Structures are given as C-alpha cells and as structure tokens.
C-alpha cells in the first residue's frame, strides 16, 4: 500500500495532471486577448505580365506591405505566421487563392513591420484569365501558441486590378 512504487506512481500522476491543467489554463487565457491588428498593402509596380506557352497567365508584382500585428502576441505566443494571398474568381474556378508572400514573426518586437518585396511565390493562374482581373489581397495570420489552441484571422483588402495588356 505504501511501497516506493506506489508513492512514485501517485506523485507522477499528480504532477502530470497539474501540468496538463496549467497548460489548458494558459491556452484558455489566450481568449482574454482581443487583438486589433492593422495592415495596408500597396502594389508599387507590375514588374512583368505575360502568358506562358501553355496558356497560363503569370504576373510579377512589387508589393509594399505595412502591418502592425503586435496586439496578437500574448505570453503563450510562440510565433505568428503571416502571409499575403491574392484572391480572385475565374469562369472555371469559383475561387482562386494564391499565397504570394509569407513570413514568420518570432517575437513582438518584430511584429510592427514594413517591407517592400516582389512576390515570393509565383502568381500563376490556371488559365489565361488575369488580364484586367479584379482581385483582393488578403493579409492572413496564424498565431502559433507555445501550447494549446491555434488562432487565425485575416484582413481583406479589395479593389486591386491587373492591367488589360501583357507587358
């Protein structure tokens, strides 16, 4: 009844239960944070815009991304994954979402940033539908906790349009 093994077992079980409980409470505490992030994206330049021999349109953009995601960080935040996706509709596909840039923010100090970049991933359409196409640029973020539930949200910025001619 009071052997060494019995006591060791009881201690271990108790310690693990407390640890799990603390982890759950820490994860729940994330819900108390109501973030108010802001973002702005400008298209500075259409670097080039062409149709491939297989009929697919591809465009290269230079983007100016300004964002303040500091309020997303809590004591349980390991990193924030942030990315910009271009979203548009075509006759064949009801929705196209293409990630064009992403980054990992490891700490709150780096969460207020400004970057001028060309698209990191290729913006290629499945077809030749990009001329004069209206599209949204959406800044998405995924909050990666140290433990517990993950959070994700986005800011949609609309009203962008590609040129009518290839260049």
């Amino acid at each position, binding site marked *: 009844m009071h052997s060494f093994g019995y006591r060791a077992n009881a201690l271990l079980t108790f310690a693990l239960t407390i640890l799990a409980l603390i982890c759950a409470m820490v994860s729940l505490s994330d819900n108390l944070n109501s973030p108010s992030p802001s973002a702005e994206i400008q298209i500075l330049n259409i670097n080039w815009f062409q149709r491939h021999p297989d009929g697919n349109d591809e465009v290269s953009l230079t983007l100016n991304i300004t964002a303040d995601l500091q309020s997303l960080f809590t004591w349980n935040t390991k990193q924030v*994954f942030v990315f910009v996706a271009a979203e548009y509709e075509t006759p064949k596909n009801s929705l196209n979402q293409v990630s064009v840039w992403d980054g990992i923010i490891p700490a709150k100090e780096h969460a207020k940033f400004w970057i001028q970049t060309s698209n990191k991933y290729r913006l290629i359409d499945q077809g030749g539908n990009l001329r004069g196409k209206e599209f949204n640029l959406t800044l998405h973020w995924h909050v*990666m906790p140290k433990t517990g539930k993950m959070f994700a949200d986005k800011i949609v910025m609309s009203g962008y349009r590609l040129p009518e001619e290839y260049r």
Partner: protein
Amino acid sequence: MFSDLAALASNPRQSLSQILNFALVLSTAFMMWKTLSVIADSPSPIVVVLSGSMEPAFQRGDLLFLWNRDKAAQVGEIVVYNVKGKDIPIVHRVVRRVEVVDKKTGSRDMRLLTKGDNNVADDTELYARGQEYLDRKEDIIGSVRGYVPCVGYVTILLSEYPWLKKVMLGLMGVMVVLQRE
C-alpha cells in the same frame, strides 16, 4: 519476486482478475482514441510530427490535434495529408487553393497545394506521380487546431527502437500481474 509468482499460482482467481484489469485499461485507451476519431471526423485525430519541415512552428515529437469537420481548407491552414501509395502522414501548410465547381452537378472540388514552412519548394515533388494538387475530400485527414510540444517524442523513440516497445509492454504486463491489491 519468486514468492510473488508462487502467490500468483496459488491464487488463480486474483491473477485472472488482474489480467482482466489490464485488458480493460488497453480497451479503454482504444475506445477513447476511437471516440476522438468520431468527434473530429478524422481517421487519426492526434498525430506526432515526424520531420523538421515545419520548423520553427513544429519540431519533431510535437503532438498535434486534428479537426476534420470543416469541408473547406483555408490558405495558410496547416493540414495533414496522406500521399497515395505512402503510409506516412505529412504535416504542411496550404499555400494555394483553387475551388472548382462542376457546372453539371454543382459539386465543389477543393484543390490544394501545400508547402513546409522550412522547405524552399512546394510539395509537388512529394505527391504521387502525376499528381499536382491535393483533393480536400480524398487526401486530407485533418487540419491542425491544437498543439502540445514534445509529448509525442515517446512514439518516435518507440518506432526508432522497436525493442523498446517489447520492453515497455513486458514491464507493464509484469507490473499489472504482480501488483497486489
């Protein structure tokens, strides 16, 4: 030790009930796993990260909880998929999503392209030959919703050193059988 074994032989009713207890523990664990599977609608609701391709978000041995009830996968979501013909589930992020509507039947097809945060190129190379995208319904077994670090490392050890499995099972069996009330 030997006196324990002797006691065991002299009291078969008690030792039988202890073996039954052990079987009960095992089947309870199995039932909990299956219940979770039904709740999350995923064949494996908990997975262990096996590679470093999602670092720094996930390291080897981290435990992930999956949810498979959403029929849409968003861009940026971390999904777990099985490549056709391979057994190992892969945990990667969706970087491209195209929704195709069949004009005749009105059914929606979700086509996804994935990439590991720590990889330079997207996963086209990893997919089965001739496959250029994942189908939400067919290939994805869930998207990651919850995260606990390190806990799953035991299973990596167990699969890398198979003899450890036998040792652990043996120890558990011996302890249960020899334990007195």
